[in-house]
């Protein structure tokens, strides 16, 4: 085996596993990727286990248990580059809904013996604990963007991933705006990357890529209110997979 290949690691914290599965969903590129890099740590795919150091670490999942904090710092120490993968690693994920409630109450709702369960009061993205070299958004991220990010870091360049809103992609795909037909849509404030999927399937964007760069969330909220969306539902749409992303969090708190 050629030991000069760059070492790739994939780490999992609190998540559905979907982001790392995206890598395995690259059916056409997977074997070529495994030739180009040394997949040195990736528990979902291999029994091989390397201690690093790693050239690139991809992190799936949020920091949600006390022990995660030491682990993510250890990942940082052993990695040249760290990329946060998906809504959990960038914004805390759906499990960050606990940040708006009491984790002790949650524990006792789900478990008969809550004392066995270790959980932090809040679920957070990894950048709150370590320096992150790049954040790839999405629940799940687009697998082609994921391949671009891996290629870019291995080639020593910045990934070519646009930070504009879903609206831009939606216009480019020639969709009729669903807001015009009365369907509330988070497209104007949501980070691109999915290819404007929801409007293409005739539903409103539900914000699974989190906030776009400089989102005008207040104007968005007014448009929802004009469309007759009650505050309770406005809070709900802002509080899903990126509920703890600052722009979504702040806007949702305005309507509580």
């Amino acid at each position, binding site marked *: 085996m050629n030991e000069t290949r760059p070492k790739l690691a994939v780490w999992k914290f609190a998540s559905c596993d979907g982001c790392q599965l995206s890598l395995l969903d690259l059916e056409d590129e997977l074997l070529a990727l495994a030739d180009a890099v040394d997949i040195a740590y990736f528990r979902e795919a291999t029994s091989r286990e390397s201690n690093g150091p790693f050239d690139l670490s991809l992190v799936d999942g949020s920091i949600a248990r006390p022990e995660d904090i030491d682990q993510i710092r250890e990942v940082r120490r052993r990695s040249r580059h760290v990329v946060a993968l998906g809504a959990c690693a960038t914004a805390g994920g759906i499990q960050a809904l606990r940040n708006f409630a009491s984790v002790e109450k949650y524990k006792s709702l789900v478990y008969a013996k809550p004392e066995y369960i270790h959980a932090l009061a809040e679920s957070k993205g990894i950048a709150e604990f370590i320096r992150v070299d790049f954040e790839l958004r999405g629940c799940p991220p687009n697998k082609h963007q994921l391949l671009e990010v891996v290629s870019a870091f291995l080639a020593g360049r910045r990934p070519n991933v646009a930070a504009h809103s879903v609206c831009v992609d939606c216009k480019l795909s020639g969709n009729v705006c669903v807001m015009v037909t009365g369907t509330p849509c988070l497209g104007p404030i949501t980070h691109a990357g999915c290819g404007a999927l929801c409007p293409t399937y005739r539903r409103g964007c539900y914000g699974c890529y989190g906030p776009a760069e400089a989102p005008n969330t207040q104007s968005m909220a007014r448009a929802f209110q004009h469309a007759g969306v009650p505050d309770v539902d406005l809070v*709900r749409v802002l509080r899903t997979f990126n509920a703890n992303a600052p722009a979504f969090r702040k806007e949702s708190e305005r309507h509580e």
Partner: protein
Amino acid sequence: MSNGDRIIRVNYLARVEGEGSLLIKLKGDQAAEVQLGIFEPPRFFEAFLRGRAHREVPDITSRICGICPVAYMMSACHAMEDALGIRVTGQLRALRRLLYAGEWVESHALHVFFLHAPDFLGYPDGFAMAKEHGEWIRKGLRIKKAGNAIVALLGGREIHPVNVRIGGFYRAPTRAELEPLLPELRWAREACTESLMWMSTFSFPSLERDYEFVALRHDEEYPFCEGRVVSSKGLDLPLCEFDAHFEEEQVPYSNALHARVRERGAYLCGPLARFNLNFDRLSPEIQALAAKVGLGAPCRNPFKNILVRLIEMAHAFEQAISVIERYELPAEPCVSAPTRASTGFGGTEAPRGLLYHRYQLDDEGTILDAKIVAPTSQNQKTIEEDLFALAPELLQLPHEDATRRAEQAIRNHDPCISCATHFLKLRVEQA
């Protein structure tokens, strides 16, 4: 600890979905203790679902599992439809079967070729296996891609599809959009047969267990989304009686709850259970395919799960082809109904087994209470019992081989720890 005592320990199981560990303490010629520990962080879905709108639940619960999101969406949709009195029939029902078939394929193919076959051939992963069996890994990836193509076309994307809603879909595809899938689906159906013939030549440990199999059973079809809950030890009940017969208990070493049949204990759901309880619902062609490799009901060897998954993939492709060949665009993409205060039950056959959802709604459709029982939490206790049964063989093996065999036995059931936590880490301790 005396000289004959050994401990097999795996701190972080590989090639399973999520974080789990194994500990087996061997004493004399048997196992004194087996713990399948699940240290996957709990995410509290059943807690934060309270107060959400019923229409949000399919998208939210899909995030329990990136491997089988469609199963979560479908169990949630069926539960809400049960609560609201909606029946999804005709082409919309057929489209749901198509989507479900796609997910079975993507999940089973990943497991069979990439996660489990390396165990039978002695490789650490699919990448190493590809160096010597590249033809089969490439075939497996192409089969998986055919399943993914169904979910991506119908659902918008492979993971967490966006096109599913209570009552049906946001947008129904046209026949012209679906038909181009057919040639690859037909190729994949045949590739499953070839793969089955090859994998049937693997060496299978001789373990046989007297499982209580649990699966859905439908009047006419091999089960996807509908049916009564039946078992090989006499259970036959509607979904709404699930809680009366099954319970979940908490153990200190795991974040996943252990399910059991109240009157008896551990049971098994998943491909082997479906196959044994519903063999007669497979088409004559698929039954003949099973017979070709010496498989029929009953099959009680958990190591043969890999073959049963291939048979289920062939079945899924057969179903997908049939749906597309008979498809006509429905007049409306979905059926709706006003909300009402009620409780709904949904159960579908996720790739790993029965996935049960129960929701209590108020008159505006707000969730008052949610209960979700994932296949892996149902199988957890049975996986531990498999390892107890395997103990005499483990004792005959050198430590490394024993550890590998124990891990292989866990992977028989393709545990999904992300699902079960609300689940896995393998430790085999050696004194």
